[in-house]
């Protein structure tokens, strides 16, 4: 009897799944157009899946192996089951192959089930708790039902009772896998995920590449929306990307804002976007809610929306979007390579450019950037005051130089001025041919862009590019990873292409070339804090550590270092929008630092310095790498100064 029912079941489920595909595709097509290589992407997809995606998943060996078994077994089982039981190809070899594959899948599903016995809080519950059992039902039923095909058991083995049990198991498994795949069950991640990998908005990320610069808005196109107001304002492949989420919660576990109790959970945000694209409420969300100040979490089920309704204050509250530090920890952890930060900045753009709703000091900072080219509103003429006694060469006089030292807005900050002066001391000791832009330099536009003010960013970027175009230099070196990232990765879209280096990279080069005569760091034990915009954004983890090693420092690494480094809380304009949480992000980072027992933390970013120094004492000391190098420099014996001439006492009348 099963022999007649099974093909009907399989093909009916396939047909329904196909209708589901069409419906899901039509949902994605609500989004705006995007330039995507459709065919090339599809062809590249298997490699992206097996290499790039697996590379991320393999950070957790248990789940990587389990997933290989389950997913591999499932794909093979489905194809073989359609051949054997759908088309009735009762071939012995095919039968054995199906037995093997469903067994592999069964073993994988068992480990999946074991992981789910005491699931960590980051994992979504609800239908996701059912999934391992569904997979067991699918693989188990197909295994048993295939035994006769392989000739292991007689055709009518087990009688009616087993047939009924198997029938139920098959129905359950087929529904979960075929229908769940395209009608929005947990298995949707496989279908949407595969297409998301094929038509990813940043294909440069695959094959070991890196793509972290925000995409520009075309401000000349008056018909294009300024940022994202409604789900349909996302590009279609962004919507597809949201649908790929497996709700593993790796992003939630890595998110500094979530840990600080600020109302952001990247996983919930992506799921809210899925609710937005499909329509409905978030009542079915079975993971951690957005944290709230009372510790209970924002209630679930009160928010909803659809593709044509504004997102903010329907689907998501504005403070959720403003909690993000753009540290990219979620993107780094996401096994589906979803672009959370892009989505958040897209929605911020709408709030800032259309609504004028940048919270707290946001509006003031943006006004200052427009009127004074620096976020603090300082008189632009004071930009070089920090170097009044240093006799720095200025590009407008020098025109041609080896190294253009990009000072950044830290020029106005008294703490950062110490770093800048230390770096100048090092450059002079290494006899580097360098100059600064002086009063011609403007804010790089980093903060404006992360606050969603694309217009101000583009204005600053264009003017800086115009200034830089007048001069001849081999490379730009800066002590600020934010300027570094923007100059290196985001000015390209406006025809500003430069060789840009962070000062740690340049220092490492100078030391390797023997241009610097450095001694040993004295005393205290040291740990190193990776700035997000240097590490995750630009992949520079080694150079700062090389510099520290050259100073004889053995870095006491924090648990969260390198690509897992925790943000200091200073990125993305977060200190400006200042969304309250139950603790501060820099305090948590300082706890990470204290755990190492280090007495000094080396940093390479003015934001990190400011945030970490804001932690109340007693705490480890904070020093920039440039300061550490400058302290360890062997001073050349300065020529003895001539004794100051004795002055006659002045007479007062």
């Amino acid at each position: 009897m099963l022999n007649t029912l099974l093909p009907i079941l399989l093909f009916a489920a396939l047909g329904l799944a196909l209708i589901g595909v069409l419906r899901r595709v039509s949902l994605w097509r609500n989004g705006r157009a995007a330039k995507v290589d459709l065919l090339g992407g599809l062809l590249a997809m298997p490699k992206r899946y097996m290499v790039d995606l697996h590379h991320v998943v393999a950070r957790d060996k248990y789940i990587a192996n389990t997933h290989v078994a389950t997913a591999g077994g499932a794909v093979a089982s489905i194809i073989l089951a359609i051949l054997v039981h759908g088309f009735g190809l009762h071939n012995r070899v095919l039968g054995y192959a199906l037995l093997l594959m469903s067994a592999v899948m069964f073993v994988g599903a068992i480990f999946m089930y074991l992981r789910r016995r005491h699931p960590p809080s980051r994992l979504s519950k609800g239908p996701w708790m059912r999934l391992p059992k569904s997979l067991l039902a699918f693989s188990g039923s197909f295994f048993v039902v295939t035994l006769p095909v392989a000739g292991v058991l007689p055709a009518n083995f087990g009688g009616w009772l087993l047939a009924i049990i198997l029938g139920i198991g098959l129905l359950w498994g087929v529904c979960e896998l075929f229908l769940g795949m395209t009608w929005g069950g947990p298995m949707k991640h496989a279908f949407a995920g595969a297409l998301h990998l094929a038509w990813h908005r940043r294909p440069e990320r695959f094959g070991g590449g890196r793509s972290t610069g925000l995409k520009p808005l075309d401000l000349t196109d008056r018909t294009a929306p300024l940022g994202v107001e409604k789900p349909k304002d996302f590009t279609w492949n962004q919507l597809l990307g949201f649908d790929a989420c497996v709700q593993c919660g790796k992003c939630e576990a890595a998110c500094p804002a979530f840990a600080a109790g600020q109302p952001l959970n990247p996983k919930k945000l992506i799921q809210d976007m899925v609710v937005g694209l499909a329509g409905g409420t978030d009542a079915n969300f079975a993971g951690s809610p957005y944290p709230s100040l009372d510790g209970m979490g924002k209630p679930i089920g009160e928010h909803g929306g659809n593709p044509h309704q504004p997102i903010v204050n329907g689907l998501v509250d504005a403070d959720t979007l403003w909690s993000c530090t753009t540290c990219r920890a979620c993107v780094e952890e996401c096994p589906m390579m979803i672009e959370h930060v892009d989505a958040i900045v897209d929605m911020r753009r709408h709030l800032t450019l259309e609504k004028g709703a940048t919270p707290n000091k946001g509006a003031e900072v943006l006004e200052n950037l427009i009127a004074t080219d620096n976020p603090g509103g300082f008189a632009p003429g004071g930009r070089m005051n920090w170097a009044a006694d240093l006799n720095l060469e200025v590009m407008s006089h020098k025109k041609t130089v080896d190294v253009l030292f990009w000072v950044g807005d830290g020029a106005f900050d008294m703490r950062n001025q110490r770093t800048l002066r230390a770096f100048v001391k090092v450059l002079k000791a290494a006899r580097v041919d360098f100059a600064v832009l002086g009063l011609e330099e403007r804010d790089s536009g980093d903060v404006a862009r992360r606050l969603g003010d694309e217009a101000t960013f583009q204005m600053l970027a264009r003017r800086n590019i115009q200034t830089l175009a007048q001069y001849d230099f081999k490379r730009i070196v800066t002590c600020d990873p934010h300027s570094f990232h923007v100059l290196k990765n985001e000015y390209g879209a406006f025809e500003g292409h430069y060789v840009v280096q962070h000062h740690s990279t340049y220092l490492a080069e100078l030391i390797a070339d023997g241009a610097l005569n450095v001694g040993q760091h004295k005393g205290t034990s040291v740990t190193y804090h990776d700035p997000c915009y240097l590490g995750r954004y630009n992949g520079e983890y080694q150079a700062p550590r090389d510099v520290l090693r050259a100073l004889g420092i053995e870095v006491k690494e924090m648990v969260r270092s390198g690509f897992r480094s925790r943000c200091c809380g200073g990125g993305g304009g977060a200190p400006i929008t200042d969304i309250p949480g139950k603790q501060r992000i820099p305090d948590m980072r300082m706890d990470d630092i204290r755990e190492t027992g280090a007495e000094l933390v080396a940093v390479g970013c003015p934001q990190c310095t400011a945030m970490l120094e804001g932690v109340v004492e007693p705490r480890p000391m904070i020093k920039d790498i440039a300061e550490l190098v400058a302290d360890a420099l062997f001073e050349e014996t300065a020529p003895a100064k001539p004794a100051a001439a004795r002055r006659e006492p002045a007479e007062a009348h």
Partner: protein
Amino acid sequence: MDKSALHVISLVSVGAHPTSGRPRRAEQDARAVELGLQLAGDNLHVLHAGDAEEPALRGYLGMGVDELHVLAQPPGADALPGLADYIRESGVQLVLTGSQAETGEGSGMLPYLLAEKLGWPLVVGMAEVESMSNGTAQVLQALPRGQRRRLKVRLPFLATVDNSAPKPRQSAYGPAQRGLLDVEEIDVVIDEVFAGAELTPAKPRPKRLKVIKAKSGADRMKAATAKASGGGGQVLKGVTAQEGAAAILKLLVEEGVVR
């Protein structure tokens, strides 16, 4: 208050950032627009006399104003006659302005001259409009040290706002770019006095040395917090206009203002 029935004009000028001097929306004028938006909503009429090509004007449009009305004037022209004619014909109930322009003459005289020319009452430093009905408005006037004075004013009237008025909302790029400029050509009256004058940068006024005479902590506290009043003030109540005028004239002569 019925927002749609209210007819409010906010007068705006081009400002200058205090540290960089670059053109921007003027801080107090933006507050006048903010107060106007809170009172009249979309009905608010924003008016500028000057150069319509100045990009900084778009800063006001970015606050959510659909249209900005400009009376075209070359630099150095006297904005007063044009504004007075326009306002008189507009049938407006309330005109809001900042206290002092950030560019140009910046004398702070415009609201006074305008009120004189129109023959309207002028409320200086208005912080809030509490109610408007039956041809009168009840408003709060800001006094030094956070004090407020409740005033009843007959409509139409003119009011200046200063830093006690509500903080202006953020100017957003999208609405600023989309907003319309409605330019009207008017007769240009050259301000002869201003045109003939020579402008020199202001010199900081010499500061009197502060001699602390207080003997105790309590005295010092009092000196730091007491009202900056002359002490010799005199409240005249129930006197005739002549007696009042005579008392004021006497004080002005004593103070050397009138010789």
